[in-house]
């Protein structure tokens, strides 16, 4: 009998998140050459169209899943810890997986440890790379928000599944193969009795793009000086199809929401391009963005520590520089198109 690797297919604003495909790709990597079923667990609102369901399943199959378990509930529109746990637990008892993979997202971070304890399982969190070595599966993960790196492995004699949460934007996608298909299985969901009620969700973020998944981040610090000062950064981000982030300096000053904070006590991000505007480069901030592929710094102080980690530095007033960048990128992208 082949073993099963289960992934949690997270949906955000009616779209499958990129990390859902990365989770399937991680499963492919874990499977290696051993015969394995790769199954995904999809929780959708009852009114989800057949079209949308097919689209989700298709993407998961294309990246390596052979099976998609679908559970429906009216309240799967927003995350609810108990409801989601009940659903995933039901899939786990059906699929009996050896590994379970979640995104290290708001949902995965909340759900995975609870499931892990329920199953008496070990969990390795926030994994950025997976490799096989001498028959061991090694999971790479950052410590101190990236100031150090460890490799961890599952050990012991427990028969419980092994649980992994993967950091978005780090596990390479497996080569898509559109000839692949699989089986969609609807599981009748028996919701558990609930002790908490989600009475409201206040959406402060727009679109489907989360900071941790953005390929390009334009980030503002105290140098941005006001909420309004973020406007030019938002324009640049929108031209680049990126997301806006911030330093704690900007969050503490009330220019933006803490949800945007990048650093040791905020989000750790690893985009292709990170543009730091009016950010000095404190060690806690650097911990959260030093893993970016290319760092660009805009700061009027040539001595700012951010320049020590930046690939490209522009010394100048961000209110002058950022609009110039917006124009230049817009022209470049129009020219390319």
């Amino acid at each position, binding site marked *: 009998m082949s073993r099963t690797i289960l992934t949690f297919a997270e949906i955000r604003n009616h779209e499958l998140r990129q990390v859902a495909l990365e989770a399937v790709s991680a499963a492919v990597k874990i499977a290696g050459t051993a015969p394995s079923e790769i199954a995904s667990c999809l929780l959708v609102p009852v009114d989800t169209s057949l079209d949308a369901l097919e689209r989700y399943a298709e993407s998961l199959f294309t990246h390596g899943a052979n099976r998609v378990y679908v559970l429906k509930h009216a309240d799967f529109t927003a995350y609810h*810890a108990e409801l989601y746990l009940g659903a995933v637990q039901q899939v786990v008892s059906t699929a009996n997986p050896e590994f379970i993979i979640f995104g290290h*997202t*708001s*949902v995965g971070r*909340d759900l995975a*440890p*609870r499931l*892990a*304890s329920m199953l008496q*399982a*070990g*969990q*390795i*969190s*926030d994994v950025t790379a997976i490799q096989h070595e001498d028959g061991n599966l090694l999971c790479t993960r950052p*410590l*101190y928000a990236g100031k*150090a*790196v*460890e490799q961890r492995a*599952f*050990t*012991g*004699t*427990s028969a*419980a599944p*092994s649980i992994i949460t993967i950091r978005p934007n780090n596990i390479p996608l497996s080569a898509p193969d559109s000839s692949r298909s699989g089986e969609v299985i609807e599981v009748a969901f028996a919701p558990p009795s609930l002790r908490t*009620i989600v*009475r*409201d*969700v*206040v959406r402060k*973020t727009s679109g489907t793009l989360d*900071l941790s998944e953005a390929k390009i981040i334009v980030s503002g610090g105290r140098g941005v000086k006001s909420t309004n000062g973020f406007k030019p950064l938002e324009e640049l981000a929108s031209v680049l199809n990126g997301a806006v982030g911030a330093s704690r300096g900007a969050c503490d000053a009330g220019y933006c929401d*803490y949800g*945007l904070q990048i650093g*040791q*006590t*905020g989000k750790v991000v690893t985009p292709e*391009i990170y543009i730091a505007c009016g950010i000095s480069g404190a*060690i806690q901030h650097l911990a959260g963005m*030093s893993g970016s592929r*290319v*760092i660009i710094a805009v700061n009027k102080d040539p001595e700012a520590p951010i*320049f*020590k*980690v*930046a*690939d*490209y*530095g*522009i010394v*100048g007033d961000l209110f*002058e*520089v950022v609009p*110039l*960048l917006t*124009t*230049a990128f817009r022209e*470049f992208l129009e020219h390319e198109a």
Partner: protein
Amino acid sequence: MNIWVLLKQTFDTEEKIVLTGGGISEAGVKWIINPYDEYAVEEAIRLVEQHGGKVNLLSVGPERAGEALRTALAMGADEAVLIHDSRIPQDEWAIAKVLSAFLADQGADLILGGNFSVDNGAGQVAIRIAEQLGLPHIGSITKLDISAAGEAIVHRDAEGDTEIIDAHLPALFTAQQGLNEPRYPTLPGIMKAKKKPFRLLSLDDIPGISLQELEARTTRVSLSLPPSRQAGVILQGDLAAQAADLIRRLRQDAKVI
């Protein structure tokens, strides 16, 4: 209200990481209360100021973790328990198992922990404890109101969005930045803390726990420092020319656009 706060001692976030002999050097390191746990301590103190009751602190760790507990006592917590035992593996399953075995008969109305630790950062321990104790949990909270009857209205941060959730105590919540502004210990607070009850326990003091159960599920295989980044170039010329130069370099050198 009988509140228990889960608290871990961590490196100050200013610290650079140095490796020695396969581990992380602790020489000369300044230690702090994990910043998220500090929010939890502050929230617990405020709740007791409002409703009456007791703030209890609980930590598993080495003896130096006692300093973090003393600091939290100086902030205004009432009692502290440190479980120190080298037989406890460094694995979230095991740590959570020890903490929940101890908490099982403490009659907590509310357990508060941090969103994650700023060192190891797994974000597992507190939520695992909720499951082991059969309590509902809400993770990453930014606002907490509790009525005298124990009805809680909780704001939870979900990647920038806010979820507003109703729960009933007993429950476990984890603190996110923005929940409050922790107070500093005052001098009289520090003096008083020295006389507050502080218990140092080992596994032998916790009934109903077997070493067998604590078997680590995961273990560290290697430890390293990330490749260090080098300073790149400072662009020159007038700002418009620098913008154009940047795009050229991103395309030709870095190949990211």
